[in-house]
């Protein structure tokens, strides 16, 4: 298999005790993932988690100075650069992917931001999937109380439900329904029930050309509808204000106006815009363009080879914390209708006629 031009960096996150290390251990025992470099981070004085992992070799790095999201600019980027340097010098095997296991308390955003923003890293690495483990026994309580946990679920590309064998079926169903409301499009696996498909967890991301259309199709496969019945309960729950919704727009849209609008929105509300994903029908581009953002960070937009289905509308999925869907839709429509004199920037040409 050809070596990837950019090495994907996957992130395994999940709240304390939700089974991240167990998941990593299972993934690493899969022969398909033998060429994976691993960075482990454990909060506290002593890195305990690495003792639980059997495979300790040159491509496994333990970050011990504390919580990843706090030490991010230094240690994580230095560790990845060091691995890359050793890889190029032949001191470690030529790994094809990196997996970073974050602490349970870490906000995933700074970790993702490091890979994308670091001037060296961004020329050799790209972001892969964010895999979030959720504990079926304690997940509901953690989601209700811990803001980090909610954020970890909202930004996930893959959700792995752990300890389902220890939880009541009804409680698991309720948790799944809550996870679906927070993040409707991430595929959900049950760690306890079936052998995990390591390839599906760590590959087929939007930026791997092979899985791109499939990844985009999944974004919109799940029905994104507000669950008003659920929202009425438990007003004091922490995750109550987080919800997902989808918007669609007819006709080609102006890329520049969209970029202007999204950067303005992220500048003011980036903290509350946990996720934005979309396929855009861009004026002047024959193929659809996929955009994908996590809070303030927007991945470089990618050209899709083809539309995932017959629908040619631009579609966007938002996961927001407390932002008003109606205002977001109206604001984007108003921006896209701006006529900057180039005869573009309209969703509905007739609206300007």
């Amino acid at each position, binding site marked *: 298999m050809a070596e990837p*031009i950019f090495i994907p960096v996957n992130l395994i996150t999940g709240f304390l005790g939700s089974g991240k290390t167990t998941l990593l251990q299972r993934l690493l025992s899969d022969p398909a993932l033998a060429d994976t470099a691993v960075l482990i981070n454990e909060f506290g004085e002593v890195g305990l988690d690495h003792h639980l992992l059997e495979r300790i070799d040159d491509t496994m790095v333990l970050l011990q100075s504390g919580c990843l999201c706090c030490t991010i600019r230094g240690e994580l980027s230095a560790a990845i650069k060091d691995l890359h340097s050793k890889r190029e010098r032949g001191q470690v095997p030529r790994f094809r992917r990196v997996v970073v296991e974050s602490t349970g308390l870490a906000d995933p955003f700074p970790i993702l931001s490091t890979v994308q*923003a670091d*001037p060296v890293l*961004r020329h050799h690495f790209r972001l892969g999937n964010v895999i979030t483990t959720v504990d079926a026994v304690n997940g509901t309580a953690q989601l209700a109380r811990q803001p980090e946990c909610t954020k970890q679920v909202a930004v996930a590309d893959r959700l792995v439900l752990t300890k389902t064998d220890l939880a009541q079926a009804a409680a698991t169903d309720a948790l799944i329904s809550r996870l679906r409301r927070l993040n409707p499009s991430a595929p959900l696996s049950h760690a306890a029930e079936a052998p995990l498909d390591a390839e599906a967890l760590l590959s087929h991301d939007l*930026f791997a*050309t092979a899985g791109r259309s499939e990844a985009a199709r999944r974004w919109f496969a799940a029905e994104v509808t507000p669950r008003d019945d659920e929202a009425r309960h438990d007003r004091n729950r922490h995750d109550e204000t987080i919800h997902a919704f989808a918007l669609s727009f007819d006709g080609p849209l*102006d*890329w*520049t*106006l969209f*970029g*202007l*609008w999204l*950067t*303005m*929105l*992220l*500048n*003011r*509300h980036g903290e509350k815009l946990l996720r934005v994903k979309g396929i855009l029908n*861009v004026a002047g*581009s024959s193929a659809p*363009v996929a*955009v994908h953002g996590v809070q*303030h960070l*927007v*991945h*470089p*937009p*990618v*050209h899709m080879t083809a539309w995932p289905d017959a629908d040619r509308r631009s579609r966007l999925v938002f996961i927001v914390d407390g*932002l*008003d869907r109606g*205002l*977001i839709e*109206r*604001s984007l429509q*108003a*921006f896209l*209708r*701006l*006529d*900057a*004199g*180039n005869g*573009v*920037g309209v969703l509905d040409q007739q609206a300007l006629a």
Partner: protein
Amino acid sequence: MCALCGVLSGSGHWTDAAARPGLFTRNVDGLQRRRERGHRIACASRVLNYYGLTLSDWQASSYVLSTATGKTEIVDNLTHLWATAEKLLGRPCDPLDPDLILRLETSGG
């Protein structure tokens, strides 16, 4: 890099992504880059008008943002644009502000 000012070009912003296989960008060649910058300034100006700000190109590498009273800042990309606009104005620039939306809807900016 501009030898005179020491300004590093290439912000790495997603709207100016470097041309790579599979990526969508209008940062492919000089002509396209210039055209996109011109269009971007025209579009942004329609919104910035609401705040009494003006935007112009600077050496095809940055932008110059000015208030009506002449306070001026150089900005690198769209992210810095909004943060700098807020700094110059001393108030937030919120695309979800119903008043701004109404102005854009009714007057096209």
